[in-house]
């Protein structure tokens, strides 16, 4: 896109490059789709065991009644977080580097919430009554308990899913219209449907730009609220290690860290395989890496505050006991791996050479993803397994069924993400054109005609 002579030429090249994405997905792509589908099906089969035989198929035993499934829920909500951060918050802050990468982040958000939303249902003893979570008129006049954080979760996650999906498809509208003009067959019909009658006239753009601003304004507080609400699932209880006002900011920072790391993890192979290196440049990766570094510092600070506040308590204090158990007990290797992945690893991104090295960046981000899953496991499992009643302490070990569902969730997420590469424009063509127009100004009219 850089070696062009006019904005029009740059627009055409950009559009061709994005339109060519589905054609660049070869046999390797279908192999990945099949692998992801196989994992998802295996996860589904594992879940069917729980439906048929009950939660006895999990490793859950009192007092540890939350395990891998809730860990997966919190992890996937966190992954879903950064999409809205990148698309809405950075839009309001006019951070231009977001333009090339926000569509991938938004897609990741929608599929992340789609994955996360399944786990509370999986975890129900009788999942066929999942609709009881929603308030609906019934003969007995019973309503949900709106004072319960679990009901807050239902509202927070379903709102986040709806708003993220709307935001994604509103952004896609003008791009779908652009791609529709050159597409054929079912893809043309699909783009026609997604474009919702888009003509690109000044009348439509006038309302569109205003609507987009409102969507960003609505979505921005959701970035803070969703994981805050998820954190209250824990913090509102009196369980040691959970009952803390630190939890909402701590969870939000962790969610952004894991989400941005996942965006980088997805972008690095995508830009290589789909030949998008001119569009998603090292500058974009560098800016995202700085974001990982910044949020990692917040997470590290939160870990530090949690540890220091617990250590100030008297030796008999349950909070202190649970914290020491995390760091020195049965799950200590997981705790220290978490600290290494989420705190020490990202610090390397302070060095420009590390940020510029694609293998190093990818490795650090993959480790952050591992570390963030472990963080959620540490929070969920160690507090329940080591609560205020020592005679109930128990070590939780996930069963193979739970591991199957955890890996199945990755299969489910990647299946939808990979399929969407065939269907959706993975770069915002319209916003990129707006940016390119100012990167490639045409020569003055007099000179052009002169």
């Amino acid at each position, binding site marked *: 896109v850089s070696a062009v002579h006019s904005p029009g030429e740059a627009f055409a090249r950009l559009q061709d490059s994005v339109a060519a994405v589905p054609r660049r997905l070869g046999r390797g792509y279908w192999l990945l789709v099949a692998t992801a589908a196989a994992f998802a099906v295996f996860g589904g089969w594992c879940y069917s065991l729980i439906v048929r035989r009950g939660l006895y198929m999990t490793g859950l035993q009192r007092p540890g009644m939350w395990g891998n499934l809730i860990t997966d829920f919190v992890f996937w909500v966190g992954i879903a977080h950064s999409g809205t951060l990148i698309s809405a918050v950075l839009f309001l802050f006019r951070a231009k580097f977001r333009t090339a990468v926000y569509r991938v982040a938004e897609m990741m958000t929608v599929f992340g919430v789609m994955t996360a939303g399944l786990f509370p249902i999986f975890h129900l003893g009788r999942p066929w009554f999942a609709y009881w979570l929603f308030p609906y008129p019934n003969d007995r006049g019973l309503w949900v308990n709106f004072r319960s954080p679990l009901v807050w979760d239902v509202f927070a996650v379903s709102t986040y899913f709806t708003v993220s999906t709307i935001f994604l498809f509103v952004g896609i509208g003008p791009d779908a219209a*652009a791609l529709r003009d050159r597409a054929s067959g079912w893809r043309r019909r699909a783009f026609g449907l997604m474009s919702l009658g888009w003509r690109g*006239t000044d009348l439509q753009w006038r309302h569109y730009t205003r609507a987009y601003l409102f969507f960003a304004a609505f979505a921005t507080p959701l970035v803070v609220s969703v994981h805050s609400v998820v954190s209250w699932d824990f913090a509102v209880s009196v369980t040691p290690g959970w009952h803390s006002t630190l939890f909402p900011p701590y969870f939000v920072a962790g969610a952004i860290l894991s989400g941005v790391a996942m965006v980088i993890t997805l972008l690095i192979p995508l830009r290589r395989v789909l030949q998008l290196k001119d569009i998603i440049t090292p500058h974009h990766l560098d800016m995202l890496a700085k974001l990982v570094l910044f949020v990692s510092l917040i997470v590290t600070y939160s870990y530090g505050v949690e540890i220091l506040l617990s250590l100030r308590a008297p030796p008999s204090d349950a909070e202190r006991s649970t914290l020491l158990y995390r760091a020195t007990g049965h799950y200590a290797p997981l705790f220290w791996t978490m600290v290494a992945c989420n705190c020490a690893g990202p610090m390397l991104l302070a060095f420009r050479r590390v940020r510029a090295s694609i293998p190093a960046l990818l490795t650090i981000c993959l480790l952050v993803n591992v570390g963030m899953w472990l963080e959620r496991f540490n929070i969920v499992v160690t507090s329940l397994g080591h609560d205020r009643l020592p005679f109930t302490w128990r070590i939780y070990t996930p069963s193979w069924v739970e591991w199957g569902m955890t890996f199945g969730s990755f299969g489910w997420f990647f299946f939808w993400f990979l399929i969407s590469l065939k269907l959706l424009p993975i770069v915002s063509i319209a916003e990129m054109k*707006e940016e390119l127009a100012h990167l490639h100004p045409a020569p003055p009219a007099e000179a052009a005609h002169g």
Partner: protein
Amino acid sequence: MARVLGAFSDPAAAARAIRALRAAGCEELRAAMPAPFPEVMAALGQPRSRLGLVTWPGALAGFAAGVALPVTTSLAWPLVVGGKPIVAIPAFVVIIFELTVLIGSITNLAASIALGWMRGGLAPLPGGRTFHGDRIGVVATVPDAELAERVLRAEGAEEVQRV
């Protein structure tokens, strides 16, 4: 009145042409483009969209629903849980916030689609040509077509035609 279409590859040139046409007395101007180029939108001088007049009441309706749902349902089955009051406002703030955002966003979506379809929004520019790709189309409805053609060409239009 005649209609003249000019196609530009540079948004800045399109904006200059629109300003020149307006200076020449042309009041009826329309444009279609692949992105909301700020210079073109500013040159057209259109008023700000009134979408907010629909969206904010939608958000307020969401707020009202967010208050009404937990309060009325809690009063309908007044069961004390955890020693909290029946109408526990701090606990309901989450529901109020989520419904405000949810209904506000859905209203915003519906209103933006409706406004984009109204007043000929679904119709392409005169001449039926679309401008989603690499060109910006400017259509002027003028009494003197030759003058408009001259202005469009002088400002860098790559194609000029009567539609």
